[in-house]
Each structure stands twice: as structure tokens, then as C-alpha cells.
């Protein structure tokens, strides 16, 4: 971004007049332009990472909800613990 020397507004690279006050944007030097380009790249990258983080969080939360539904609503409950059939032996005395 190129700052307007009159009002300080940040204007896109290549802008000839300030988009805020209409003042002519001063010609910048190459190193200033390079710095502005780098700033732009960092800004774009940070926006992308932020979007990526949001997406990953949403996907994670969605999967978590699906897993919880699977665990507590879809999987049938365990049979009630009961005493299993035990060998009772013969009716008649030994």
C-alpha cells in the first residue's frame, strides 16, 4: 500500500491520486515500493492464514459434533450387566 503524504490514507500500489483526499500521490522510490509490496504480501498471507484457521476450526467442530452424535446417539447402549447363567449342578443329591 502507498500512504498519501497529505492525509495518510493507505492507497493500493499504482494509484496516482489519493482515494481519500484526491491529493496526488508522490512518486515513491524503488525501495519504498518494494517495502510496500512486501507489506502487501504479508497482509494477504495473514488474511489467508486467518481464513484457513477459521475453516480448520469449523471443520474440527463439525467433526467433533458428528463424533459425539455417533458415540451417544447412534451407537446402541450396552446390554444391562446381569448375572450370567451359572452352572447350577444337579437337582439330586450326590
Amino acid at each position, binding site marked *: 500500500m502507498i500512504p498519501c503524504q497529505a492525509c495518510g490514507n493507505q492507497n493500493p500500489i499504482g494509484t496516482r491520486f489519493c482515494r481519500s483526499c484526491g491529493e496526488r500521490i508522490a512518486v515513491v522510490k524503488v525501495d519504498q515500493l518494494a517495502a510496500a509490496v512486501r507489506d502487501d504480501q504479508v*497482509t494477504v498471507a495473514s488474511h489467508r492464514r486467518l481464513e484457513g484457521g477459521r475453516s480448520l476450526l469449523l471443520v474440527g467442530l463439525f467433526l467433533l459434533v458428528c463424533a459425539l452424535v455417533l458415540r451417544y446417539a447412534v451407537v446402541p447402549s450396552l446390554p444391562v450387566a446381569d448375572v450370567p447363567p451359572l452352572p447350577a449342578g444337579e437337582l439330586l443329591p450326590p
Partner: protein
Amino acid sequence: MSPAQRMTVAFSLMGAGLLAVLLAGLIAWSAVGRWQAVSELREAQSQMRRDRPADARRIAAAAQARIPEEPSAALLACDPADPEAVERLAALAPRLTRREERNAVLATVAIARLQAGKPADVDLDGTGDGRLISAMSAALAGRTPGPLYAAGEDPPHLQVQRVVLTTLLRTAWSAGRVEEVRRHAGALWLMRPRAAEAPALRAIIAATTTEVADDAVVTMLQEVKTDRERLVAALGRLVPARQPAFAVRWPAAPATGATP
């Protein structure tokens, strides 16, 4: 927000997202394992109903490997004739929080220990199982158990009733206490009137009831398909007044004094 702040927030969101994905994976994995365990337990119960305990225990052991802390799997997987398996089951009981699950585990352990000739040594006080197991313990020790009654407590388990009543019937029979034999046989018959041993139980009840005629008892004994000769001989000794009628129909069993 500056790019640096945005990056910090982005990495935080990514971390939280990855954590959520990981957690979801773990929960889904445990859910699938639990699902498989439930299927295996149902199959084990089915095998147990078909009177195939070895197959049932093998399948239940696979389920127990997936859900080791669940008593429903541990109970089905436990072989009551294996002392080590019984003690492993006993070790599970203190970790159980639900009272009914703990009672089921302790009752199974107590019955298995008593059948192995050891003291029951479990805390089932105030439960129906506890009363029954105390009576079984007394009977096996040669003492006459007191009357069995429920007093607003946890009801006893069906399998515990079956084992204990069978033991009480057998010990009362050995001691020649006819009235007790009749009472326990009646309770056992009422519990499972269609079971394989039901004809024998009906015959025992009839033979130990003086109002029932000898002919009716003989007719009932004829319905007994398995081990009838032993039953006739043992009944002849328990109720000597019936022996002449039995000797007419089955001369071999009482005359030869077949050992029951």
C-alpha cells in the same frame, strides 16, 4: 488488526481446529469400538441362550478387550470354574459406580467362590442376592438355612435364585427334609416352568405332597426323559411310602439300590 496479530489469531484457530479434529477422531474410534463390542455382546448372549457357554465366553472376551471397564462384558467373559477369572472379576467390583452392576458382579463372584468350596466373602448386605447367598453358604456348611423372604431390598437376580435354590434343594434332600425339598422344588419350577428340568421338578413336588396319589406321581415320573432311574431311586429313599408304587413300575431302580 495488524498482520502479526492476525497471524497469532490464525495459528490459535488452527491449533484449536486441529485439537477438535483429533478429539473427534478419538471419540469416533471409541464409538466404533463400542459398537463392535455391543454386537459381540449380543452374539455372546445369543450363544449363552443356546447353551453354548464356551463360545459365549470367547466372544464376550473379545468384547471385554474393547471395553475392559464394562461389567456386562466382564460378566459374560468370566468362566466361574476358573479361580483366576473369578478373582479378576472381583477386582473389577470396587471400580463400579452403579449399585446394580456392582451387585451383579459380586453375586457372580460369591456363587463361583461357594461352588469352588471357598467362602463367598463379598459385601451384599441389604440385597436379595445377599440373603440368598447367605442361605447357600449356610446350607453348604451343613447348617439349616433360615426362611427366605424379601424385605423391600434389591431383588435377587434370576440366575442367583436358580443356583441357590438348586443347592438348597440338594442339601435338603441329602438331609432328608421333605418339606424343604418340596418348597425349593416348587420355587424352582415356578421360576422356569418350561425348562428341561421342569418335568422332574413337577414329579418331585408331587411325590413329596401326601395328597397326590401314587399313580399320579408315577405318571409324572414317566414324563421325565433324562436320568429318570436315578430320580426314582432318590425319591424312593426320600419318601419311603412311595417306594412300593415305584417298585411296581420300575422294579430295577429301587430294588438294585441304584446310587443317585
